[in-house]
């Protein structure tokens, strides 16, 4: 089975965020970046599926669209066990925030690969739109299922375990080729081993200039216009001091205001 994993680079979870001067996005230059967490779970699910089918059963290809620095996401994927990688190199600026435009880029690169299965994280930790995977399936004309915890191969294609709200689940079967977006937590992530990092150096990362696809861009009816710090929804009383002082203040709150002591 040829499995392709669409991945995205995002700022580290705890990275301090400063709004850019034009308020259209954040200051990106000083940030540290990492792999979008649900995409790491998507890669893990792809590697497990390949392992379950036997070593000579196919390949796992990591794909990203992003500026040059996004290549580190692919190198990490190769170190964890992906067989090769594709990097659609986009300009660092302007930032692309429309998932339809990103999906168009991914679709253009994927058409030359004809994978059996495409996996993607269910949403990004930065934009949080949760759409790129679904739109990609639509553009490629293949079936999809979202919020999936586990994928298994069956004779007619795949069977996936999908998470619903409030503790409910559902199995869905689909023919291949298909696309699945992966929810975090369905598997445990493997770490890159020293051997894996060493091997990754000899694996192929093919770069494609995004402009070479000649896409026309999208005409979104509503666009990201201004980033701002949210207003507080509640008046928060911040308690300060040493650990012992804070503990004493909290006990006072628990006893006299919340009345649970």
């Amino acid at each position, binding site marked *: 089975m040829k499995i392709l994993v669409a991945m995205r680079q995002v*700022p580290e*979870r*705890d990275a301090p*965020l400063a709004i850019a001067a034009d308020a259209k996005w954040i200051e990106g230059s000083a940030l540290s970046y990492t792999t979008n967490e649900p995409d790491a779970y998507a890669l893990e699910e792809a590697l497990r599926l390949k392992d379950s089918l036997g070593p000579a059963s196919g390949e796992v290809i990591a794909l990203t669209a992003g500026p040059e620095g996004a290549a580190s996401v692919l190198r990490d994927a190769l170190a964890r066990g992906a067989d090769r990688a594709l990097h659609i190199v986009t300009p660092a600026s302007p930032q692309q925030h429309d*998932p*339809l435009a990103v999906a168009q880029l991914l679709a253009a690169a994927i058409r030359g690969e004809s994978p059996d299965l495409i996996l993607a994280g269910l949403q990004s930790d*930065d934009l*949080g*739109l*949760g*759409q790129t995977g*679904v*739109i990609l*399936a*639509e553009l490629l004309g293949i079936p*999809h*299922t*979202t*919020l999936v915890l586990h994928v298994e191969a069956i004779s007619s294609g795949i069977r996936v375990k999908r*998470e*619903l*709200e409030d*503790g*409910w*689940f*559902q*199995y*869905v079967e*689909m*023919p291949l080729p298909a696309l699945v977006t992966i929810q*975090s*937590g369905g598997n445990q992530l493997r770490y890159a081993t020293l051997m894996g990092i060493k091997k990754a150096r000899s694996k192929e990362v093919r770069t494609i200039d995004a402009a070479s696809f000649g896409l026309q861009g*999208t*005409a979104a*009816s*509503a*666009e*990201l*216009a201004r*980033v701002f*710090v*949210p207003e*507080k*929804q*509640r*008046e*928060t*009383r*911040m*308690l*300060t001091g040493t*650990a012992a002082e*804070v*503990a004493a203040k*909290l*006990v006072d*709150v628990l*006893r006299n205001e919340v009345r*649970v*002591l």
Partner: protein
Amino acid sequence: MSGVLVILEHRAFAQGSVTVPRVTLEALAAGVHLAQQLAIPCSAALIGDGLNDVLASPAFGPVRNVGLAQLLAVEHELLASYTADGFSIALHQLIASLAPEFVVFPHTYQVRDYAPALAARFGQSLVSDAIAIRIESGLPVFVRQLFQGRLNADYRMAASSRTPVPTFVSIQAGAFRAESLDAAAASAQPPQIEAFTPKLTSAQIRTVPAAPFRESSRSVDLTTASVIVAAGRGIGEQANVALIQSLAEALGAEMAASRPICDAGWLPMERQVGSSGQTVTPKLYLAIGISGAIQHLVGMKGSKTVIAINRDPSAPIFEIADYGVAGDLFEIVPALTEAILTTKAQ
């Protein structure tokens, strides 16, 4: 029609009863609000099979009485169970026929599964998980969260984009008040229910869904707990769960966690609070090392009092906390546990 079209969801149970999820009523409130602000009509549509009884049920009272221009039943036997293919095809035909300016959805797991594909058929992406709508210069501005709620963003429309392509928006749970529908209802005439039959064939539906199931009966019911101590990613490693457990025991509280802790297997999944876990409303919610991603906040923001302890003073949890401590939980939590035990011993 050039108005607002709200896509409704319902749950039907074997014994014949019907419920309308709260988030659907909230999305309807958002749609009604948007339509009023722009002085355009608001309509709504429900998708499924055999919907007449559903739309006539008491649960749909607030929907019938809100003064909708049209209430549509999009019906087909192939829509009896949800599939992304069936719903996308049916709604594509409905929207192409009605030509609304705005299509408003509740931001549910089901909408997340098909609405991006539907919007893409109109060359659009979805303004997903919106938390507010305001009007500036006669045009709506949609607000949504970025970076797991650490920042917000305005999504603005260009004046030229009001027609002819619809704008697709989904509404976050809790962002609009379902109660506002009652106020709007006073003088409204219930609309005729109109049937819309999409052209669908079974060959167009490529996925085969099985019946939803629950993994096991829940042995932990956090929804009735009056005090909850919850741990998040900030606790660092599994060994530190003991710190939180000691505090919970001192307070006589139930232990809960955000998703990453349950994903890692440090606490069982049944103790997860958030969109994929339980929704809780305790007297006290003590959040430790929880940054406050949207998915977690929706499960606990109804708590009467929230106390948050977190290293990062800019963490979104502090936006909804009544009391906050920006500091090292590994120092504060043991000190707090000790202080509570001392107080109780007095």
